[in-house]
């Protein structure tokens, strides 16, 4: 797919647009940090798929806790975890994106890493204003998701550069397998280092410095005026 024309990479524009949505960039990134911290607590003794689940679950929980003072609520319509604003007209969930997530120089928009279930499919189609005959028997669910605009906090962990790239985007289409691939608006939140000094290391990695950047620390120091 081609890139969305409604891409917001500039900090001033990101902050302005998020303010219109009653959100703040730092809060969304802090929620992702909580997910990253949860991932750092996983060891090889945990089931291999648990790290991704822990990251996802703690990011949702973090967003709920950080946004609660602003009137946002956690709801689970039909088992899908959502954050919904005080007016009830905007909701978002957290999802893992592919390597194009949060990237400005990519020629294509990001995909969600995993295919989505029927609730998300409903929400995406409601966003696009389409009607879906095959879903009309589930009238209640369809009407429910028409009440709010649906967004996704999309995060991608880049092991090579040691960061999690994030964006807050409004989905409007998906492929046949259910991966979201098209967005009407993408607000680029930027990246956070994951693990902040720690890195994944196995005995078979051997000695020497790790090739990946995970756990490398960057300190920006300014001159005093």
């Amino acid at each position, binding site marked *: 797919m081609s890139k969305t024309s409604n891409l917001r990479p500039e900090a001033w524009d990101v902050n302005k647009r998020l303010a219109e949505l009653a959100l703040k960039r730092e809060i969304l990134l802090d929620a992702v*940090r909580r997910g*990253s*911290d*949860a*991932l*750092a*607590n*996983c*060891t*090889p*003794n945990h089931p291999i798929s648990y790290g991704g689940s822990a990251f996802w679950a703690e990011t949702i929980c973090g967003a709920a806790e950080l946004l609660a003072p602003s009137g946002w609520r956690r709801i689970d319509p039909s088992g899908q975890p959502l954050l919904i604003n005080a007016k009830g007209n905007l909701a978002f969930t957290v999802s893992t994106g592919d390597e194009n997530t949060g990237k400005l120089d990519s020629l294509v928009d990001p995909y969600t890493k995993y295919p989505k279930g029927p609730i998300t499919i409903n929400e995406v189609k409601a966003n696009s204003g389409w009607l879906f005959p095959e879903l009309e028997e589930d009238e209640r669910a369809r009407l429910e998701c028409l009440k709010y605009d649906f967004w996704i906090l999309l995060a991608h962990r880049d092991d090579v550069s040691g960061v999690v790239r994030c964006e807050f985007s409004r989905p409007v289409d998906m492929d046949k397998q259910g991966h979201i691939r098209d967005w009407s608006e993408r607000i680029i939140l930027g990246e956070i280092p994951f*693990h*902040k*000094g*720690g*890195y*994944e*290391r*196995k*005995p078979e*990695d*051997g*000695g*020497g*410095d*790790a090739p990946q*950047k*995970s*756990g*490398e*620390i*960057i*300190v*920006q*120091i*300014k*001159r*005093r005026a």
Partner: protein
Amino acid sequence: MLNRFNKVFNPRRFAFARRRRGYTKTALAQKLRIDLRTAVAYEAGEYLPSEEILESAALILKFPRDFFCGEELDEPSPEIVSFRALTKMTAKQREMAVTQGALAMHFAKWLEKRFELPGNSLPDLSREANPEIAAESLRQAWGLGQLPIRNVLHLLEAQGVRVFSLAIDAREVDAFSVWQGDVPFVFLNGNKSSEHSRFDAAHELGHLVLHKHGGPRGRKAELEANSFASAFLMPRGSVLAYPPRFPTIQELCRLKKVWTVSVSALAYRLHELRLLSDWHYRRLCIEMSKRGFRHNEPDEAPRETSLILPQLLNSLYQDDGMTRSAIAADLGISLHELESLVFSFVLTTIDEGRHEDNGLVTTSPLLRRIK
């Protein structure tokens, strides 16, 4: 008290320089060919040394002559400094270490005036009775979870600890740490293996967070700092995920690379977590002693270098044209003294208008130019 250049002679600076070089008053008097009573009187501020004596003292003590004329330097109080092997240290070694600490603080203050350095983010864990839990708490606070630490030196610097090199060629002086107001300092002996140096840094971090307000001293405090360092570098969950397949030195050499620790530190931790039986641990200790692993680490990891100091020195050179000699002169110390504070951690040297690389390491690509 003025000398012929109208600079105020500071007797305390004179005494400081003597202590820094590990001279007794008697030894310095002999070197200067003066009697002891005169040397004592200089330090008491009763007599003003002649210009010739000052010149000789500067040569012997390896300080610029004007060093004796500066303001009094803040010194870490010996009571609040955490020395790891205090009982094994001589008074001379303690004096040399404390005075080097004072010069590092002098340098740090000089840098603080020019740069916004990372602020201290060390929590006060002095109420936590269990060092293992304190280490776990700090890991959670810093988002490290159960992960091995990539670079302990960088981590400490990023969390606001000022890390300097300890240039004392004595095994008894491993490392020490001290709080100066709200700024934590750690001094590390550069003559040790990377693995031992990382453990020393974690040990000193333990003192800084566990014993900020004094607390236990001596052996108890050292054992607590050791337990903290062990748990901080080798978190329980992470170690339990890689139990040794066989209780052999070869297996420990393979596993130690996960956490970049020494074989002996790993053996201790494995035994503590009951992944090694008492019998196996004893056998491994005997084997490590036989092979000399206590002092010569096998298959040593690359040495950690400073994240911040090269940035600062590069910025001073590129933006202000300040070489290390110029910085040392501004601080009123010798270039050698300045180098001794940073030598272990800064491998790219800039001096006298030349930019040298000693060929050991390249500058990290993540070092960014200071704005």
